[in-house]
C-alpha cells in the first residue's frame, strides 16, 4: 500500500474510530452515571434494576428508544424534521478528529495548526439542528425552545471565544498540541487564567444547554423544548448529540486549561517526554489521564445540574452580555498588561492566591445572621 495513503488516510481513520468508540462508551456510561449521581444527591438511589447496580441501563435505554414508534407530526415540515436530529450529530462527531488524546503523533488523529479555531467553527454549527428541529415540529413550544437555544448559543459563543484568547496570548499558538506542551513546562493554564477558565466553564454549560442554562428545554415552561415532538431514535439522536458536545467541551477545557494528557507542571511529573520514554504504554497512560480528566468535568456537569436552579431568560442574557463578555475582555486586557510587563509568572501566584482565598472562604464558619431572615418570619 502507498505509504502516504497509510499515514494520511488509513491510520487517522483507525484512530478516529477508536476515539469515537471510546467517546460513545462514555456517552452510554453517562446516561447511567448522570441519573445515578443525581439520585444520590437527591437522597434516592436512581436506576438500579437493570443488571448489577443498574449498570445495563445504558443499553436498555437505547433498545427501548429503538423499538419505539417513530412519530411524524402531520403538520411537520418533513425534510427539516428529519434533518433536525442529524445536523447536531455531525459537528459533535467531526470534532473528535481534532482533539489530541495523547502524546503526538501516535495519539492524535490529525494535527491541525489552527485546530482550536477549527473546533470553534465546527461546534458553532450544532445550533442549526436544534433550530431546524424546533421549527420543523410546527409546535409553538418547540419553536420557542429552538429560538431560545439559538439566542443563548449565539450569546455565549462570544465569551466562550473571548475566554480562549487569554490562553492563546500566553501560549502563542492555536495548535492544541502546542498549548498542551506549553502547559507542561509552565503551569496549567487555569492558574494564570483563572478568570478565563471560569468564564469558559460557564459558557460551556450554556453552550450545551445544561442546567442552570437549560432554557431551551425548560420542562416547566416549554414541555421539552425543541425535542417535544421527537420520539424514538430521533430523540435519542438529540441526546447523543448533546452528550457528545458535552464531551467535546470537556475535552476542550482539559486541553486548554488543565494540561491535556500530561500530569505535571514546570516540567516535573508525567510530561510528554516522560510518557514518550515509556513507549506505547506511556501513550496509553497519557490517553487514560486525558479521559480521566474529561470524566471529572462530565461529573461536574452532573453536579451543577443537581445544584443550580434554572435562570430566567433575561437573567441569562444579562449574565452573558453584561458580565461574562466585559469580564472576558478585562481578562484579555490584564493578561496583555502582564505579558507586556514580562511578569507572566506573577499571574500564577495571583491565580493561586484566588484559589486559596476561595478554599478559605468555603472552609470558614458562616457568620450568625443579623436581623430577621425571611425564613424566620414565623418565629418572629
Amino acid at each position: 500500500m502507498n505509504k502516504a495513503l497509510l499515514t494520511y488516510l488509513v491510520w487517522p481513520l483507525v484512530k478516529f474510530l477508536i476515539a469515537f468508540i471510546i467517546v460513545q462508551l462514555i456517552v452510554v456510561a453517562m446516561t447511567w452515571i448522570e441519573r445515578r449521581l443525581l439520585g444520590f444527591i437527591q437522597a434516592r438511589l436512581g436506576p438500579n434494576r437493570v443488571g448489577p447496580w443498574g449498570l445495563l441501563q445504558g443499553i436498555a435505554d437505547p433498545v427501548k428508544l429503538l423499538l419505539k414508534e417513530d412519530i411524524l407530526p402531520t403538520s411537520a415540515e418533513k425534510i427539516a424534521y428529519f434533518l433536525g436530529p442529524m445536523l447536531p450529530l455531525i459537528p459533535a462527531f467531526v470534532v473528535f478528529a481534532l482533539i489530541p488524546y495523547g502524546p503526538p503523533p501516535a495519539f492524535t488523529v490529525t494535527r491541525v495548526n489552527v485546530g482550536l479555531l477549527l473546533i470553534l467553527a465546527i461546534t458553532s454549527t450544532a445550533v442549526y439542528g436544534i433550530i431546524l428541529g424546533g421549527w420543523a415540529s410546527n409546535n409553538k413550544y418547540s419553536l420557542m425552545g429552538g429560538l431560545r437555544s439559538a439566542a443563548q448559543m449565539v450569546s455565549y459563543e462570544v465569551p466562550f471565544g473571548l475566554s480562549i484568547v487569554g490562553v492563546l496570548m500566553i501560549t502563542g499558538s492555536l495548535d492544541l498540541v502546542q498549548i498542551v506542551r506549553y502547559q507542561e513546562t509552565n503551569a496549567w493554564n487555569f492558574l494564570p487564567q483563572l478568570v478565563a477558565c471560569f468564564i469558559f466553564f460557564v459558557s460551556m454549560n450554556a453552550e450545551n444547554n445544561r442546567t442552570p442554562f437549560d432554557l431551551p428545554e425548560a420542562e416547566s415552561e416549554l414541555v421539552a423544548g425543541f425535542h417535544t415532538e421527537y420520539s424514538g431514535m430521533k430523540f435519542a439522536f438529540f441526546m447523543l448529540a448533546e452528550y457528545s458536545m458535552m464531551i467535546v467541551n470537556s475535552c476542550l477545557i482539559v486541553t486548554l486549561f488543565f494540561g491535556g494528557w500530561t500530569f505535571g507542571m514546570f516540567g516535573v511529573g508525567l510530561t510528554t517526554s516522560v510518557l514518550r520514554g515509556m513507549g506505547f504504554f506511556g501513550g496509553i497512560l497519557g490517553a487514560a489521564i486525558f479521559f480521566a480528566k474529561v470524566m471529572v468535568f462530565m461529573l461536574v456537569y452532573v453536579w451543577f445540574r443537581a445544584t443550580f436552579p434554572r435562570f430566567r431568560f433575561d437573567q441569562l442574557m444579562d449574565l452573558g452580555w453584561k458580565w461574562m463578555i466585559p469580564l472576558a475582555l478585562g481578562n484579555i486586557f490584564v493578561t496583555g498588561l502582564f505579558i507586556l510587563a514580562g511578569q507572566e509568572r506573577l499571574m500564577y501566584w495571583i491565580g493561586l492566591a484566588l484559589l486559596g482565598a476561595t478554599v478559605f472562604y468555603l472552609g470558614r464558619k458562616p457568620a450568625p445572621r443579623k436581623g430577621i431572615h425571611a425564613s424566620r418570619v414565623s418565629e418572629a
Partner: protein
Amino acid sequence: MQVEYPKPSWSQKFLVLDLLEGLKTTFRELFKPKVTVRYPEERNEPTDRFRGMFKFSYDRCIACKLCAVACPIDIIYIDVHDDMIEEGGKKKKVKVLDRYDIDVKRCMFCALCEEACPTKPKSIWLTTKTYELATYDRNDLYFNMQELEYWEDRPRYTGLPEEDEKPRLDETRLLK
C-alpha cells in the same frame, strides 16, 4: 410585619462564592444515607395504627348486620339463619352467620363498618399491617368469611413469578 431580607454584601454580589456554597451542600448530600426502600427485597413495617386490609373474626361476630347497614356502597353481604341451642336446660335462639362477604375491589376503606360494629373488641377492623392487596384478577378481591379471617396465612409477594408459574394466588387461598 416588616421582613428584612439580608442585603447581599459586595462579595456575594460580584463573586460567585455563594454558588460554591451550594455546590458544597450538594456534595455533602452525595454521601448521606438514602431514603429509598427497594420494595420486593426490603419493605417497611407499618406502624401499629396503620390502616390496612380488613380482618374479620367469626367468633366475635354477633351477626347484627350493622356493618352492612353502615356501608355506604353496600358491599358487605350477610346471610343469617336462626338456630335453637340448648343451654342449661333452656332453649335459646341464636343467630348463625352463613355468609359474610366483602367485595374489597369496590371498597374505599372508609372504616364505617368498623365504627358501626357493636362488639368489643371489634369483629371487623382495619388496623392491620397489610397493604399488599394487588391481584392479577379482579375477582380475586371478592373475599368470603374464611378468607377474611385467614388471609394473613397467604404467602407474601416476593417479586414477579417465573415464566411457567401462573401468577395467581388462587391455589394458595385457604378453605376454598
